[in-house]
């Protein structure tokens, strides 16, 4: 500080002034928010319980009946409609293609008693493909992973899941990559497609399970289509971003060289965007895996079924073991695709001699693979996965014992945590939001949105709230909104604390990251059971489930943001005498502010996607309405209304946070972030 002071006095003055202005603006905004909340609380204290628009769980209003008739009409028309019969024949083709794959790997086709290729051949093929695409290191991950599927007792289910994910991702890429190129080229297309992607990602799957069964029949085709709805958006979004960010100058140079559109796409844009597109594919794979359990509700083959079996039989262990298999699969696919994308770069730079060596190994590997496939085709021992060693049963029993212990010895303590939190925090907040008259809450939300996110947030919020009002589930929407907001607050707090710890210390990162990966990929139904045991069926449990699901993503984002703060900046701050706490609060967090805001936005959307599952463990409200619509024919209309309401909530929250983040980002650039960046090189010598 003392070294830099003489040379930077005038700069510091200017900065102080600019800082004061932005600080004033920020303070004005905080005061405005506070004023809104105070007025809101005052009105609530006199008017609570009036005009809340609460309706009983079994009520169906005119709007719901109308939606019900709409759904019935579409379903009835499907018998005669040409479009639907086209969908049906498409589904038939998809079903027989998938059946053909299953007959090779998992399901015996009469009169053959076993599938064409059993475990040995399957592993050999997987290993060879991995070697070709991602290299040796990945093979060392893939082979043990496949063996683990078998030892856990879920060989067939695991391979079925892999086939399903493979087919879904292939279709998603087939549709998604051309679409993302188009979006990268045209603003109009982007403007049309983006809201569709938003709806695809926020609409609860239970809403479209039944219509998809109508359109595609019961079978794997419907399961694949359901998976596609959720899994296609990532590759489209990330791919479009990749195409858009290909350097403009490079493009202009190639155009001036006389390349036409097609050449430019194939030779320049796609190769340059390739790595990012593969990141999109990776996200699509993860999303497809996340749908495994949901798809099992309409008889999808694979690992989702044992998870649901465990649920309906009250066997935590069974669900857990299947969940572990899914986590192993997710980690395997994630690491392998990442390695493959890195490798695609390295391969270009490899020398001639290495290339030949690689060809020889690949050829030899292919021969060995074919031999193993042949054995697997003809020999029982190489076809049926051996039943020993059996890791699944002991793991299952251990988990069941653990569950018993939690139930008898821990749950009294945890129940008191639950009731304390609910009584003193959740209930008051919910009362303010849901028990205020609807127009008061609505006005308050609109005001807050405007203060945080400006005019664009205002428009989005007004439209979404109007939609929610007309769908007749206002009260339930407000109860759900409360849980989502409170859970997100917890997620952000966790993300900042754990993310900073991980970002600052590599060892902490290495220890925690596998747990985060597991938390992100294990089907939400699995951690749900211990949470239920500990806290009982209520809103708190649903929130904990949401936090477990959303926190890993948010933590990773914050950790990466903290890590990307340059070493020099931190050293500069250290040399100017800042202590650890000051560095975190004044340097690292402000500079990683973008990541923190992104973490909040993603945390919100992830929490929101758990609303329906929350409805299955006592959160009631919109989540319960959606599930009831799926389960009971008389409530399809209300379920649909609840699903659309969730989408509207999601879009509203997303727009408020996105526009808010954009504004906050602008003010930090002027006020805080830049000075540190500018000062760093100067006081570093």
């Amino acid at each position, binding site marked *: 500080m003392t070294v830099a002071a003489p040379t930077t006095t005038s700069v510091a003055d200017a900065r102080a002034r600019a800082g004061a202005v932005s600080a004033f603006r920020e303070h004005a905004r905080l005061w405005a928010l506070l004023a809104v909340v105070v007025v809101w609380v005052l009105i609530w204290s006199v008017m609570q319980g009036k005009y809340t628009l609460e309706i009983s769980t079994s009520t169906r209003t005119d709007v719901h009946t109308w939606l019900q008739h709409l759904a019935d009409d579409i379903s009835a028309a499907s018998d005669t409609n040409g479009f639907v019969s086209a969908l049906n024949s498409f589904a038939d083709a998809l079903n027989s293609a998938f059946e053909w794959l299953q007959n090779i790997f998992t399901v015996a086709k009469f009169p053959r*008693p076993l599938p064409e290729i059993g475990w040995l051949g399957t592993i050999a093929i997987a290993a060879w493909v991995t070697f070709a695409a991602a290299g040796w290191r990945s093979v060392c991950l893939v082979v043990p992973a496949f063996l683990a599927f078998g030892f856990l007792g879920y060989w067939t289910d695991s391979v079925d899941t892999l086939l399903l994910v493979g087919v879904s991702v292939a279709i998603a890429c087939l549709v998604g990559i051309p679409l993302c190129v188009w979006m990268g080229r045209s603003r109009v297309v982007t403007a049309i497609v983006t809201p569709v992607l938003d709806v695809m990602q926020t609409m609860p799957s239970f809403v479209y399970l039944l219509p998809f069964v109508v359109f595609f029949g019961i079978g794997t085709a419907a399961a694949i289509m359901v998976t596609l709805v959720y899994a296609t958006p990532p590759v489209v979004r990330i791919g479009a971003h990749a195409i858009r960010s290909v350097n403009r100058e490079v493009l202009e140079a190639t155009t001036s060289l006389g390349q036409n559109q097609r050449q430019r796409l194939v030779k320049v844009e796609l190769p340059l965007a390739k790595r990012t597109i593969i990141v999109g594919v990776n996200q699509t794979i993860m999303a497809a895996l996340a749908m495994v359990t949901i798809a099992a509700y309409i008889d999808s083959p694979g690992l989702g079924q044992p998870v649901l079996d465990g649920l309906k039989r009250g066997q935590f262990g069974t669900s857990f073991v299947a969940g572990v298999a899914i986590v192993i699969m997710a980690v395997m696919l994630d690491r392998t695709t990442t390695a493959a994308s890195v490798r695609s770069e390295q391969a270009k730079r490899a020398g001639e001699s290495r290339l030949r060596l690689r060809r020889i190994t690949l050829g030899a590997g292919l021969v060995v693979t074919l031999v193993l496939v042949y054995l697997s085709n*003809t020999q*029982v021992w190489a076809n049926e996965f051996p039943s020993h060693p059996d890791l699944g049963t002991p793991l299952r029993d251990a988990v069941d014992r653990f569950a018993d212990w939690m139930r008898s010895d821990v749950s009294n303590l945890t129940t008191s945590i639950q009731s304390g939190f609910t009584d003193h925090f959740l209930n008051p907040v919910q009362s303010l939001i849901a028990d205020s008259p609807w127009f008061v809450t609505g006005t308050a939300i609109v005001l807050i949105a405007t203060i945080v996110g400006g005019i664009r947030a205002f428009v989005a919020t007004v439209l979404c709230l109007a939609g929610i009002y007309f769908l007749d589930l206002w009260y339930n929407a407000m109860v759900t909104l409360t849980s989502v907001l409170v859970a997100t607050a917890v997620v952000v707090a966790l993300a900042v604390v754990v993310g900073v710890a991980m970002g600052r210390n590599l060892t902490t990162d290495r220890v925690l990251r596998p747990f985060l990966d597991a938390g992100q990929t294990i089907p939400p139904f699995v951690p749900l059971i211990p949470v239920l045991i500990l806290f009982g069926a209520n809103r708190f449990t649903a929130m904990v489930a949401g936090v477990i699901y959303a926190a890993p993503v948010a933590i990773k984002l914050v950790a990466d943001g903290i890590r990307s703060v340059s070493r020099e900046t931190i050293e500069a701050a250290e040399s100017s005498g800042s202590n650890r706490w000051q560095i975190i609060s004044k340097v690292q967090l402000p500079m990683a502010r973008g990541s923190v805001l992104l973490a909040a936005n993603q945390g919100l959307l992830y929490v929101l996607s758990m609303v329906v599952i929350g409805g299955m463990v006592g959160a009631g409200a919109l989540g319960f309405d959606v599930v009831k619509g*799926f389960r009971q024919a008389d409530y399809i209309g209300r379920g649909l209304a609840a699903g659309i309401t969730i989408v509207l909530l999601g879009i509203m929250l997303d727009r408020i946070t996105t526009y808010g983040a954009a504004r906050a980002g602008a003010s930090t650039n002027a006020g805080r972030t830049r000075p540190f960046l500018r000062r760093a090189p100067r006081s570093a010598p």
Partner: protein
Amino acid sequence: MRVRRTHAVLAALATTSALALSACGGDSIENAKEPTSGKDCGDVNMAVNPWVGYEADAHVVGYLAETKLGCKVNYKDLDEQVSWKGFGNGSVDVVIENWGHPELQAKYMTDKGGDGTAVDAGLTGNDGVIGWYVPPWMVDKYPDITDWNNLNKYADLFKTSESGDLGTFYDGDPGFVTNDEALVKNLNLNFKVVYAGSEDALIEGFRKAEQNKTPFIGYFYEPQWFLAEVPLVKVDLPKYTPGCDADPEKVACDYPPYPLNKVVSSKFADADSPAYELVKAFTWTNDDQNLVAKYIAQDQMDPDDAAKKWIDDNPDKVNAWLSAAGAS
């Protein structure tokens, strides 16, 4: 060139080793023989609705159809609504345990005004009971709690963070019809209905309540495997009389008894395969179902093994069904 030669050498090596390996033991895979049954049975698409009692029925019938009648049984894990939808295009043939569902009957059964894709295939012999239940420890301590008139006396016990000053009454699975909100209102009970949201959540609640001796009251039903683990006790609501539940807003009486039945697709019924005769003939008692359900849920047996065990132990019942189906 060099590369290709290496390949040839490797291939030769590999083939020899493979031949050697396959020669030196292990069973090789041979095609199965045609099943030796009299009448042709074909495929049976059996819906498996998501509760264990249903699974027990499905696998007992399915196991017999496969082993004694030579059918190929495809089990499809589906919800009730989706299963009935499947009758129309042949993807579902049998729903082996149906709990009423007037709304689905009205959609798919001719005599109820539906499109005629579903037909009744007779009772399963199981009597479904829906009602309000408390864990057994509560009955030991508060014997008069099983009378609904005394529920208000104990309402304070059931207070939770979810229900404010009222007692919490837990409703469960969103798939089941409930009148509980109306019942609480019309019987003037100081309770609030809270939706546990799934059967699993409800079972976990009862299990914990019995283990830790905490108060709990909720909606439940039998036959249900969980009653073998914790014998819940039913609370007596005002007696059911036909028609007392006609207006869902004014219900003030207990749930009706549900004689459970089997429903099949009309295509399956018209084809008149031995499997259809077996489905029609199948009846058993609540105890039978509870036993098989216990094998599956508590003893963690594979559903087919559980079915086989019961079938081996009950030849008389099984043979009666089989002779109706035209098998030995």
